[in-house]
């Protein structure tokens, strides 16, 4: 047990590290996306700033800060300013309950690699992501612009619809692990079947749940093929049409931070978290879990970009029909079957 002072100090340090890592990862996910999509479309992507365009995120950030911050007339000013803040705060807060690895021992004290180990971690993440809708919805309304309003309405309808299948797809994992705590869920996935297949949830019959999670997560983060809220051909830029400079950047950061959260959650719930082959000396063994975690998150993000480079956008009625008539029944069926199997074998 830590005393309250050490607890606070450790928490602040962990928060700072997590924030820096998260924001850097966000910046380089943008770079990766531009590079990968560029190569998929026979272009080079960013090449000018630094080797392989690696300093491009820095240049982008500088540009965002130095640009003039326009506030159009006729907007509802308090909400217009609050909306990007709400979006970004809720996007970043969810990193607080995500575990990155086994607890490490520093100066004889056990320190979990997680800012807050709460026993309803998954519920907290679902709650925070569902609060993130307000940023988008309020941005659309307060801009006082018909394109923004339509974008905001689409975003809130889409997020509310897909949240249900998202939540239901996670319950199968919860039944298998028997806990809401993300750390316990990862621990339940350690070990292997028949000596070589890892005991990840995706190999424990939750592959349909993973598919449902994948689709709902794309819809929740407003990414192609579900990026209706910002469909350029119909809505200019959707809910952030009226936003410029750093306020626009905040929406941008929150979108990519949400992608990171979704990727971390997929890793924890379906892909076995930080478990992977362990080898080498003690120091390497201490670092390996973090490496596996990062690698899995990277693969999930790459899939995101790959899908973006491959699939076209849904039509709005197709989007709603897919969510309510296909994903939701599938999620309920998966839940019932998982519950039956668990009850049978228990």
């Amino acid at each position, binding site marked *: *047990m*830590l005393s*309250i002072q050490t*607890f606070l100090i450790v928490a602040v340090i962990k928060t700072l590290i997590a924030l820096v890592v998260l924001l850097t990862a966000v910046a380089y996910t943008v770079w990766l996306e531009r590079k990968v999509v560029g190569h998929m479309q026979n272009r080079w992507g960013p090449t000018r700033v630094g080797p392989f365009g690696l300093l491009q995120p820095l240049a982008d950030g500088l540009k965002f800060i130095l640009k003039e911050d326009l506030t159009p007339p006729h907007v*509802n000013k308090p*909400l217009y300013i609050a909306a990007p803040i709400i979006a970004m705060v809720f996007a970043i807060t969810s990193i607080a309950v995500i575990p990155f690895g086994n607890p490490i021992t520093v100066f004889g004290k056990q320190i979990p690699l997680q800012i807050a180990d*709460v*026993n*309803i971690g998954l*519920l*907290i993440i*679902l*709650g*925070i992501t*569902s*609060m993130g*809708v*307000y940023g988008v*919805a*309020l941005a*659309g*309304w*307060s801009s006082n612009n018909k394109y923004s*309003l339509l974008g*905001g*309405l689409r975003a*809130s*309808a889409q*997020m*509310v619809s897909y*949240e249900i299948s998202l*939540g239901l797809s996670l319950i199968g994992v919860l039944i298998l692990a028997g806990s*809401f705590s993300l750390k316990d869920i990862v621990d339940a996935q350690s070990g292997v079947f028949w000596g070589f297949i890892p005991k990840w949830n995706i190999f424990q019959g939750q592959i349909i749940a993973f598919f449902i999670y994948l689709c709902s997560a794309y819809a929740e983060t407003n990414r192609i093929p579900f990026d209706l809220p910002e469909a350029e051909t119909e809505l200019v830029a959707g809910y952030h049409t009226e936003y410029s400079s750093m306020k626009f950047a905040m929406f941008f950061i929150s979108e990519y931070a949400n992608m990171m959260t979704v990727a971390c959650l997929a890793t924890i719930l379906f892909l076995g978290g930080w478990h992977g082959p362990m080898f080498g000396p003690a120091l390497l063994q201490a670092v390996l879990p973090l490496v596996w975690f990062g690698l899995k998150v990277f693969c999930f993000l790459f899939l995101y970009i790959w899908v973006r480079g491959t699939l076209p956008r849904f039509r709005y009625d197709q989007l709603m029909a897919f969510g309510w008539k296909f994903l939701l029944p599938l999620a309920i069926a998966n839940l019932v079957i998982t519950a039956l199997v668990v009850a049978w074998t228990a």
Partner: protein
Amino acid sequence: MNPVATPFFFYLLSTLAILGGVMVIVRRNAVHSAIALIVTLLSVAGLYLMLYAPFVAGVQIIVYAGGIMVLFLFVIMLVNIDRSMKERAFNKQWWIAIAAAVALGALFVSVFVKSKGLFPERGLPLAEESNTQQIGLYLYGNYMFAFEIASLLLLVAIIGAVVMAKKRI
């Protein structure tokens, strides 16, 4: 770790909840009222957390703050706010409302004063780790009937909404 600064958090969350509640009825702009209601719901979720009920707190945020209020906001966003802002926010029911509020307050105070001996000074909280499990066991055990009735009512509401919304079934 033992709880720290509980009175501070209790009074902070209660004040936020009450302030939000007052803002809901005082603001003329319906969107502002909706946001104030979200603040109230979130503070109540914090109070549940302080009562060692993490599951209820999480569900409060997901269902009320994240689900129902989004739909409220969705409807308000489609209403012409400019016209409704020019209308008078308070009408003649004002006095009835105050009388009802005072009566309810008096009831609360009298219950609080009279039942001092009835309730234990400090309720034994459920173990935080097994809280969610306990709720599940109670819902599907002791309170099975009430739970099923509630879900039946919700089903009726869904079917009613579909029947009313769809012209031809």
